């Protein structure tokens, strides 16, 4: 049955749907404090004493080997660094009883003063003994320069606060062990990442681990990673020789999964009086959380490097810092550094336009890169002027130019194409089975893979089975993130199909569908790719403000270069889905903490996930300049989460006359004064 048909019948197979005889339900007693020493634990079945592993980083932007003191122990090792950190584990063959057991664990703490604000962290005592500084990353990009004294300067502090990824299906895993091999079923973006991570964390040979991806109910960056709970589940499965299930609750998700954003920028943009930008200086500070294991070691650098936006920026010198705070480790969330970088530069550009009393889009046009170049911060910026000209036309900007409620965003999306991707096609009994290294979790790769195989091999869609990730079926793989799958994954499929075609050609003289379906074929391709590709995009947003300062998003239009369109419906869905997240980031989504580091958000609605009645209908137009990859496609997944917050913030700024430098924008800030 086709995947969507299965799903609408309720016959998907998500991780919590798995039932096995003798299965144990795992639960975690979690820290109530943001920062504390643990004095005593009683009533727990598993603690660090027995399960003393550490989480290793996997997924997008994974780095290896930070300072040892900072690694995330799977169960707390004498101290806790954030509310929700797993301290001890309990289990039972009844999920309700497992929860009762959590309540019976008693933990004595000696609380310490939490470090909550990232900038404050740089001034505070070090979080751990033996660590030199709370800055776990502190690097400079670009080159120091002396601005022309006659230049105009725009200086801003700009903040993107933390938000939860909030896929509607929470995290989850089932682990089983047969005495030799550990098999794991997991909701993930990358079976191979999980396998690699588990092997390293548990110090087990990789070939004794099999990771199977089940239907995955959304991920948005989160599920590329390995988590403490997964390691404990595997440990327990091996210890008890019984299948173990752990399913995250939403509350746990809000406390202890890896939230995204959480970045502060202090930046100065320099420009000539005619609007030509001349340089950028300042710092980007990432709120890393209490341990490594997320993406905090990577994200400040990734953000700093992209700060030229799609513009020609001759000079730049930017400090990239990641600081320890008493919060859960920061992780990738749809865009993962891309939305932050573009938000910062685009807010500065709007500020500059206001200062010069110029039209912000005209200012962007002056500065759009006329030729492809490598910015002083290190990223290649593709020539962008022509694209911007066509965006202005396609989004009908002239019509909106003089309105007091419009915002425009110009963006460059760097696809995580580097690293390539794998695919395997197996033909047997007249059907094709396809496995890929990047595992779909709401992008419907199955649809475009079938389209491509129809083109490459002439096979009808209904004899192709696109299977979920399985490390036993596919040698190696990377993962589905960073707007990469339509590019490298599809290319791997094309090349693998080509290999089969070639073999048939060799054997039969020429390729025929009949030969394909009557034979047995099995080809694996790891499509290698080293380059980071990019594409351009623009957004236009208009708003209405009511008399209470509430924002009604009226129009939200996208114009993205997605190269060859592999699946139009899917592209539209990706756009609308990302746009809602972009609106959420701007207006409602935040994981707020109090000054003691206690989370103030306890439900998915408090976390600001928007419902259908709060968002508009979206519009998208496509620019189709083909990518150099075999699939000729370009990714789209992250473009709306980059562009929409920018254009929406600007539209609100215009409509209210209030400077917007923070997401989410608090309704309170927008309350209009009443005329007496």
């Amino acid at each position: 049955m086709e995947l969507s048909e299965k799903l609408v019948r309720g016959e998907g197979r998500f991780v919590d749907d798995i039932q096995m005889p003798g299965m144990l339900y795992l639960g975690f007693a979690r820290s109530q404090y943001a920062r504390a020493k643990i004095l005593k634990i009683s009533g727990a079945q598993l603690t660090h004493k027995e399960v003393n592993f550490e989480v290793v980083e996997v997924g997008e932007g994974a780095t290896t080997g930070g300072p040892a003191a900072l690694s995330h122990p799977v169960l707390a090792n004498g101290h806790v660094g954030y509310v929700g950190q797993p301290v001890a584990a309990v289990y039972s063959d009844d999920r309700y009883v497992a929860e009762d057991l959590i309540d019976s664990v008693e933990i004595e703490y000696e609380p310490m003063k939490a470090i909550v604000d990232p900038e404050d962290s740089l001034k505070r005592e070090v979080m751990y003994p033996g660590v030199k500084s709370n800055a776990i990353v502190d690097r400079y990009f670009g080159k120091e320069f002396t601005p022309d004294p006659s230049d105009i300067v725009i200086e801003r502090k700009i903040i993107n606060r933390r938000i939860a990824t909030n896929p509607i299906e929470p995290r989850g895993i089932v682990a089983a062990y047969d005495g030799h091999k550990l098999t794991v079923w997991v909701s993930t973006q990358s079976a191979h990442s999980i396998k690699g991570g588990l092997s390293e964390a548990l110090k087990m040979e990789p070939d004794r681990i099999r990771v199977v991806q089940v239907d995955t109910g959304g991920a948005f960056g989160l599920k590329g990673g390995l988590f403490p709970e997964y390691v404990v589940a595997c440990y327990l499965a091996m210890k008890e020789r019984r299948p173990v299930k752990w399913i995250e609750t939403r509350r746990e998700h809000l406390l202890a999964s890896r939230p995204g954003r959480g970045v502060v920028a202090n930046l100065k943009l320099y420009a000539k009086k005619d609007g030509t930008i001349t340089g950028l200086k300042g710092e980007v500070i990432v709120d890393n959380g209490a341990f490594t294991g997320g993406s905090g070691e990577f994200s400040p650098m990734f953000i700093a490097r992209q700060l030229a936006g799609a513009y020609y920026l001759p000079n730049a010198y930017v400090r990239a810092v990641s600081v320890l705070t008493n919060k859960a480790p920061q992780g990738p969330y749809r865009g993962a550094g891309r939305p932050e970088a573009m938000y910062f530069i685009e807010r500065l550009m709007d500020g500059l336009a206001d200062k010069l009393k110029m039209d912000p889009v005209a200012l962007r046009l002056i500065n759009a890169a006329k030729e492809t170049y490598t910015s002083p911060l290190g990223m290649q910026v593709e020539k962008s002027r022509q694209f911007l000209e066509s965006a202005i036309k396609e989004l009908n900007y002239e019509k909106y130019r003089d309105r007091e409620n419009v915002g425009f965003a110009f963006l460059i999306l760097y696809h995580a194409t580097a690293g390539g991707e794998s695919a395997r096609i197996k033909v047997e009994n007249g059907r094709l089975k396809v496995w890929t290294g990047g595992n779909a979790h709401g992008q419907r790769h199955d649809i475009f893979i079938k389209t491509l195989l129809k083109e490459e091999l002439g096979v009808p869609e209904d004899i192709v089975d696109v299977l979920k990730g399985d490390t036993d079926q596919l040698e190696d793989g990377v993962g589905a993130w960073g707007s990469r799958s339509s590019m490298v994954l599809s290319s791997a499929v094309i090349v693998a199909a080509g290999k089969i075609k070639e073999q048939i050609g060799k054997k039969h003289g020429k390729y025929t569908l009949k030969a394909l379906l009557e034979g047995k074929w099995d080809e694996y391709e790891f499509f290698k790719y080293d380059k980071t590709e990019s594409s351009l995009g623009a957004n236009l947003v208009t708003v209405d403000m009511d008399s209470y300062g509430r924002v009604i998003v009226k129009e939200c239009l996208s114009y993205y270069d997605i190269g060859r369109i592999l699946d139009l419906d899917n592209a539209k869905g990706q756009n609308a889905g990302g746009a809602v997240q972009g609106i959420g980031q701007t207006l409602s989504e935040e994981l707020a903490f109090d000054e003691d580091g206690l989370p103030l958000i306890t439900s998915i609605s408090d976390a600001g996930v928007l419902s259908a009645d709060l968002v508009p209908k979206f519009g998208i137009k496509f620019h189709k300049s083909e990518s150099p990859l075999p699939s000729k496609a370009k990714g789209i997944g992250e473009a709306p989460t980059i562009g929409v917050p920018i254009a929406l913030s600007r539209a609100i700024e215009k409509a209210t006359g209030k400077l917007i430098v923070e997401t989410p924008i608090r309704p309170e800030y927008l309350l209009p004064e009443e005329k007496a």
Partner: protein
Amino acid sequence: MNPPAFEYFAPTGIDEVIDILAKYPGEAKILAGGQSLIPLLKARISSIPYLVSLSEVKGLSYVDEGKEGVRIGAMTVDSDIENSELIRKKFPVLHDATEQLADPLVRNVGTIGGNLSHADPANDLPAVMIALDARISVQGRNGLREIKARDFFLDTFTTALEAEEVLTEVTIPFWGKRSGGAYVKFKKNTWNFSVAAVAVQLELEGNKCTRANIATTSVSAKSGRMESAEKILAGKELTHEVISKAASEVAASAQPTSDPYGTEDYKREILKRITREAIRKALSRAGEN
């Protein structure tokens, strides 16, 4: 997150319900729609050893027009009130509130009895019932008694109900011919609950307001009447100035607290503006009659 263990009873008669409540004083609680109680149990915020469900007691779900008013059974779900033509016509303030209460699926289960008994100052129906001068019928070991809605809500999560009493019915008396009301709710961003909300019910004679009730949601420890503001309206023609003055008085007498949804001052300001909106709407509805 799942509830802790409890004993469950589902008797078919009110008397039995009362007997069970009396048998476990302080340990037994009524379960109506469960839309407040079950989330609390799931979050393990409260643990209740004995739950007594009203789901099998027949005859507690109705919206009936009587001689002196409309009677609503305790187990009537919000969506049945929302869809009642009678309520829409006679008490638009209640229609306004049910239409904006929670979400459509929660409204299919949550009951008026539960909404009132729960006495969450963020629940919408207490303020509406206070504004409408509704009377609440409760049944206990000593029979039936009626409590005025305005006297029913004592504090956050605390009502005038005794431990073994059951709320059985709400009676909303008819108002004069030229009356009208409105409920204006300023929702939290993506939550159904409000930053502030206000219920206003007015009656007019000539161009003067003869009766005015105002009650608020989410801005005090309990839903309560705003008597000082009501006094500003009573007996007067509701000019722009009078309305503004009453709205400012509501804002001044409320006791909101700061949280991630806004500071105390912000909430007062919102309350002032929604109160003005609600009075105007109520006035225009009363004027149409």
